[in-house]
């Protein structure tokens, strides 16, 4: 009996140890290059990261279509939730088990490039007949200057624009926004569009800053550089914009920042006449049941909005780099119209963007597509070049300032001090 007990104890321990070590071991075929051959029909499987779900309509899923148009290849999408995207990608890169292709955010690209975790694509681009270095929007060239080489190609780009409810404007007798609108025009319109009944706001002139980018676009429009020499750069522009936002909140023209500001869309629910958010919302708003349109973000000292993109990059650990480049080359050429139509985002390749595939028309809007061109011209990669922790913390501080919980001057000073560390 004792002998049996001892044997049972040893067997149990060995089984546990083996399973633990086996589970902790890395799998060579798990996430990184999944090149596999199946007899004569060679299928090269590649994995690419993305933060949004692939389009349910396969004809608009550019990654799936790569496999359809390139027999012998398959491109699988690894979806990582947006809130954890940067963090997860950094962890995979650091651990050396990143997939074959990553869609890196601008803030991460520099770190990956500086630490040689991704490869430069200049040699591939030079030999390519489909990808032309001089056919990208100007902001992309600036990224190359920053990093010293081309480490990623922009899968598409989005700008920040303004959406407005035409029915509410008609009811209030307010003229529609134009491409030349200023902040003063915006505030004047918001005052006329806000409705208060029995002490409660039933219609806001504009929605609050549900999207963090809106804060930075406003600060940039007010004159600050946002990003300079690798660091956050805000000052008088931020103070001016925060003061304006605070006045709008105090007058109840826009809702005060609150929990789930990002989740509750007062514009879509018909409780706000305007909203300032990303151009990707065109795809979401196309099903709205009221007349709406788009305009560039209001100008202040200058026209400014933040461009958003993701850069197709090849990790240094990718086994089949040539196949990974083949996929990127296709995605940046023949795949661009599919991506534009599917996401409603403009192609960063100017010749493809000119064809207008991003113009996903909804039942009741939009029609002022020139807003995209204006936004593209004034767009810059500003706050997106900074770590998400810095910009996220800064937005929380801005919200506190707008709510009167701390002074605006102190807020801007503290944000800069924290960012400088």
């Amino acid at each position: 009996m004792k002998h049996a007990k001892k044997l049972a104890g040893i067997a149990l321990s060995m089984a546990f140890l083996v399973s633990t070590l086996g589970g902790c071991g890395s799998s060579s075929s798990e996430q990184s290059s999944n090149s596999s051959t199946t007899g004569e029909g060679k299928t090269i499987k590649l994995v690419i990261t993305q933060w949004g779900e692939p389009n349910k309509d396969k004809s608009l899923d550019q990654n799936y279509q790569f496999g359809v148009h390139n027999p012998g290849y398959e491109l699988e999408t690894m979806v990582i939730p947006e809130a954890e995207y940067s963090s997860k990608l950094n962890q995979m890169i650091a651990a050396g088990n990143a997939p074959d292709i990553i869609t890196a955010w601008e803030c991460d690209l520099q770190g990956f490039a500086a630490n040689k975790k991704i490869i430069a694509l200049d040699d591939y681009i030079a030999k390519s007949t489909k990808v032309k270095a001089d056919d990208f929007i100007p902001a992309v060239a600036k990224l190359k200057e920053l990093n010293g080489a081309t480490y990623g190609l922009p899968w598409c780009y989005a700008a920040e624009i303004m959406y407005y409810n035409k029915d509410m404007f008609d009811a209030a007798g307010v003229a529609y926004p134009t491409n030349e609108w200023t902040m003063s025009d915006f505030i004047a319109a918001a005052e006329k569009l806000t409705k208060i009944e029995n002490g409660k706001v039933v219609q806001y002139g504009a929605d609050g800053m549900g999207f963090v980018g809106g804060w930075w676009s406003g600060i940039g429009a007010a004159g600050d550089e946002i990003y300079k020499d690798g660091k956050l750069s805000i000052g008088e522009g931020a103070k001016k914009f925060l003061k304006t936002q605070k006045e709008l909140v105090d007058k109840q023209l826009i809702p005060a920042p609150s929990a789930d500001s990002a989740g509750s869309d007062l514009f879509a629910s018909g409780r706000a006449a305007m909203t300032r958010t990303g151009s990707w919302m065109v795809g979401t708003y196309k099903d709205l049941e009221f007349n709406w349109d788009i305009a560039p973000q209001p100008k202040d000292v200058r026209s400014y909005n933040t461009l958003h993109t993701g850069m197709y990059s090849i990790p240094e650990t990718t086994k089949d780099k040539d196949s990974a480049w083949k996929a990127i080359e296709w995605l940046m050429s023949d795949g661009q119209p599919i991506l534009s139509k599917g996401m409603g985002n403009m192609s960063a390749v100017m010749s493809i963007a000119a064809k207008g595939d991003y113009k996903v028309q909804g039942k009741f809007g939009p029609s002022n597509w020139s807003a995209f061109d204006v936004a593209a011209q004034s767009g810059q990669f500003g706050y997106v070049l900074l770590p998400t922790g810095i910009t996220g913390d800064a937005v929380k501080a801005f919200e506190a300032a707008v709510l009167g919980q701390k002074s605006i001057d102190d807020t801007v000073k503290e944000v800069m001090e924290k960012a400088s560390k």
Partner: protein
Amino acid sequence: MYRLSKKRVKYMNHSDQYYSNYKKRLIKNDLTAYAFLSPWIIGFILFSGFPILYSLFISFTDWSLLGSKNFIFLDNYISLFQSKSFWNSLYVTLLFSILSVIITIIWSFSLALLLNLELKFNSFFQFIYFIPAVVPTVALAFAFQLMFNKDSGIVNYLLGVVGFNASPNWLYDPKLVYPTVFFIALFTYSTGQMLLIFKSGLKEVPSELYEACEIDGANTIQKFFYVTLPAMSPVILFNMVMATIAALNNSFSLLYPLTGGGPNEATNVLSLEIYNQTFKNFQIGYGSALSVILFLIAAVLAAIQFKLSNKWVHYDS
């Protein structure tokens, strides 16, 4: 087996050989016991012990995940103690933990007392009280975040229906955020778990003590203070320690989706600060230093609780 000394064995007139065999049997028994314990020991070393020690090592470096680990001695700790943000997080952590423990203990104990009354539909009430506890904390937090939204939340809508149009900003007003968060904490798993433990503990209180009290003319309140509380004191201590650990460690899963540390860092507990520094700013060394501090706080608080328990916990033995 009793562990006999060599002197005792000789006294009992057993030979050296007997003693040697006896020692061998003891060693074999010990090894068998360790063999059965080894799965837990191996698991602890691999998943808790080693990470804790490695984190301590990382806290002395400037590692930023992608670069190399450069040893910087105590620089992270010096920065930490000079940081306003750290002291704010420390204050918030202690305040949140202490208040959270008191409120959740009182609430779960009160519910357990109600369930102990043995009324009709007792099982139904227990089901209702415990149901929110089985919802994952993060899902619970997101649901309440929607409910407490200033403009589109159902709480303000219902308040408007009864004539209160002020629309409080529940989670973004520093004066309201704590009561709101503590209210939500009442529905988390740890509170539900405490309820069940208290309920089981109440069943173990000897009924003869209550009978003796009734004979002596004690009223309900006196019975509660002189019988129930002392008899339940070991269970209360256990739940207090568990609640403290939950408040220190699990507050992240509640506060991150609910407030993100706001408004104005009013709920920026240490676990959130660790997450932000480590996974958003990729200051792994600094984040590890914060983790070490949190570990020490948890250890000190638990030690204080156990030390103070000598004064008010009554064990049957």
